[in-house]
């Protein structure tokens, strides 16, 4: 009798403890530990908090609760793949691996498993070609859009003429950091500037040689593709050699609060690209505060709300939530599958009116995903740091990137991938 009671209680406990199979499952491959935790924590918090808000405020998506099981990758590719394998059986609808290395490993796996990958602002840039990468979505912007947006900003500052200007790309000496080189090279041929690339090896604690070179060459602008401690050191070294901060422009992974704060006042004027809004002056953050933080349901302690990387997590979660909603509409079911989720992502349309309804008016550009275009509009704004105010401010609108240059690069790279992997075009 006692054994039966224990067994019954165990079964009941398991039923309560296990994820409800009807939930919409969006695993979060997070990194709250390791050398990149300072960026990983706010992203994971923002991602989880947005879904928690939907559960608390709206009862989930289309009446179905959302669950966000977290798996710690420590930004390690092998661990990331293990996380994918260990969570996909939970009914995962989509993955946001938050690492270019993990993304590259998951592209063939997820495609075979019919699970979409959502990689906003990172991952394989040419995955924007949905004709080849059927299960990868990297809207609203990728690294090549970023490179182009930086040049557009510089063009604007120079009256549209960059002939004879010197531009340095200071970058992480790996796949991520080398991503913008082809685009910047092509744009250099088009606009007549002189590009010098200066790599920094991981982890980037010591950058003396790189900054002495910059001091000698006196470039007009320094573009920066860094991550982790590399960011803080680069900004400090730029301040040390008195490089004009407003001529130093980082990609969105080099433009968070924790990147600029260690340099103090000297970081004022530093710029970074962004594909989403900054600060917490949007109605959605009121709801996040009310339904999540104040209710004690936040993934973190609430102190990251409104910071750059937290906002990026919120934005990514919002996109997935909207795509899930679209999938429910298309297929007429609330409990969607990952294949249906893929359809939702491919037919997603973000309008300004919808952004306003979501309490995120002006937080990002409007766009429409299609079978061929999984990369979105590539619209990017520039943000600038003010150390005295302790905040970033947008100093431009979300501007389009130079697709005349970028599209052929995307086509060539994706065609090479298709040839290597015998992929037939999926769009008619």
């Amino acid at each position: 009798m006692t054994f039966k009671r224990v067994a019954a209680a165990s079964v009941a406990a398991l039923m309560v403890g296990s994820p409800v199979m009807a939930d919409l499952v969006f695993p979060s491959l997070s990194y709250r530990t390791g050398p990149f935790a300072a960026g990983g924590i706010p992203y994971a918090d923002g991602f989880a908090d947005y879904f928690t808000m939907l559960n608390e405020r709206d009862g989930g998506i289309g009446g179905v609760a959302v669950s966000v099981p977290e798996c710690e990758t420590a930004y390690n590719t092998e661990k990331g793949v293990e996380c994918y394998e260990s969570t996909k059986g939970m009914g995962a609808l989509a993955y946001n691996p938050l690492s270019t290395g993990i993304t590259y490993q998951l592209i063939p796996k997820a495609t075979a498993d019919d699970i979409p990958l959502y990689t906003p602002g990172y991952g394989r840039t040419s995955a924007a070609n949905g004709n080849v990468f059927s299960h990868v979505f990297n809207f609203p912007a990728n690294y090549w859009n970023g490179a182009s947006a930086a040049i557009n900003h510089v063009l604007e500052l120079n009256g549209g003429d960059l002939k004879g200007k010197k531009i340095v790309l200071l970058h992480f000496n790996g796949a991520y950091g080398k991503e913008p080189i082809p685009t910047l090279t092509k744009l250099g041929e088009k606009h007549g500037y002189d590009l010098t690339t200066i790599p920094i090896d991981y982890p980037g604690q010591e950058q003396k040689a790189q900054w002495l070179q910059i001091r000698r060459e006196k470039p007009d602008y320094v573009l920066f593709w860094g991550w982790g401690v590399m960011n803080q050191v680069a900004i400090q070294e730029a301040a040390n050699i008195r490089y004009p901060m407003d001529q130093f422009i980082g990609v969105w992974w080099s433009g968070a609060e924790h990147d600029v704060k260690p340099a103090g006042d000297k970081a004022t004027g530093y710029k970074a690209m962004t594909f989403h809004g900054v600060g917490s002056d949007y109605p959605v953050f009121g709801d996040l505060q009310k339904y999540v933080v104040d209710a004690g349901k936040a993934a973190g302690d609430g102190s990251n709300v409104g910071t750059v990387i937290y906002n990026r997590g919120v934005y990514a979660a919002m996109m997935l939530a909207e795509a899930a909603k679209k999938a429910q509409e298309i297929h007429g079911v609330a409990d969607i599958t990952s294949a249906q989720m893929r359809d939702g992502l491919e037919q997603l349309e973000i309008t300004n009116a919808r952004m306003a309804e979501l309490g995120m008016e002006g937080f990002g550009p409007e766009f429409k995903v299609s079978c061929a275009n999984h990369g979105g509009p590539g619209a990017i704004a520039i943000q600038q740091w003010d150390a005295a105010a302790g905040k970033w401010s947008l100093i431009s609108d979300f501007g389009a990137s130079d697709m005349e240059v970028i599209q052929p690069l995307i086509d060539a790279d994706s065609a090479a991938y298709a040839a290597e992997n015998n992929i037939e075009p999926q769009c008619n």
Partner: protein
Amino acid sequence: MPEQLLFAMEVTLNGLMAGVLYALVALGFVLIFKASGIFNFAQGMLVVFAAMTLVGVQTGQIPFAHLINTIFGTKIHHFGWTVPTIIAIIVAGAAMVLVAWIIEKYILQHLIGQPDIILFMATIGMWYFMHGFAPLMWGSEVMKLDVGLAQGINETIDTTTYGWFGYGFFIDNLDIVAAIVAALLVTALVLFSQYTKQGRALRAVADDHSAALSVGISLRFIWVLVWSIAGFVALVAGIMWGSKSGVQISLAEVALKALPVLMLGGFTSIPGAIIGGLIIGVGEQLFEFAIGPLVGGATQAWFAYVLALVFLIFRPQGLFGEKIIERV
């Protein structure tokens, strides 16, 4: 003077300064290896823990706040006060003494007489433990470290060299401070080991554990002492490196910079750590300046190791290390 020569001179000076910073990290390894024959894999984490504790105390941060908040549902972060830098340094130094005592009592004491490889493995375990423990105690955010050290270009050197050569050299004020601090630290360590009772006991233990024990020297005390000194050196290194990048877990990676310095200078020589650091610093900066652009740049990460390996071929004990002679 040719422009390239001026640039090379500037690079050399900066290499010397970078070398001092490498040497600061290497010093901690040398102290422990010299006294106990242990290659302390966890030295990089001692740097992180020391620097995190300094900032945490200085800014009045509540230790384990995240853990407390998670368990009890509270929202505490700071005590609401700040602590003067000098007191924060003293408290952080005391914390490193406590860490040394804990390491001796709960790890080393149980491994007396074990082969060196076991002790080395224990320090790997320590590294992993502290890698989790330090952020659990102080959080994973990048902590701004401000102990009032000047940073940025030294105007005097810039102006003077401009007057001489028509080109102003860049030397970071923080690097100058680091060089002075390193010189003082090495002098203090040499004086300590030569002229104090504890220092002589430390040297005796370094020479022969058994002989030192037989004349009444407490091995346990010496280990606590040497790990405390290594902890203090880690604190100094953490201040210098943390001032450049903020304090964060990846500061532990600076230990990677110390390995080639140790291979070059020898694991048992304090002057060797300094000279090794300077050679590595100058070598990697000059190599990057002269050869880097021809091979795609970012040569610093591997050049130091290649240089150390070349040295190993001709002088396995390093420049100043003791030659190991084992009779068959």
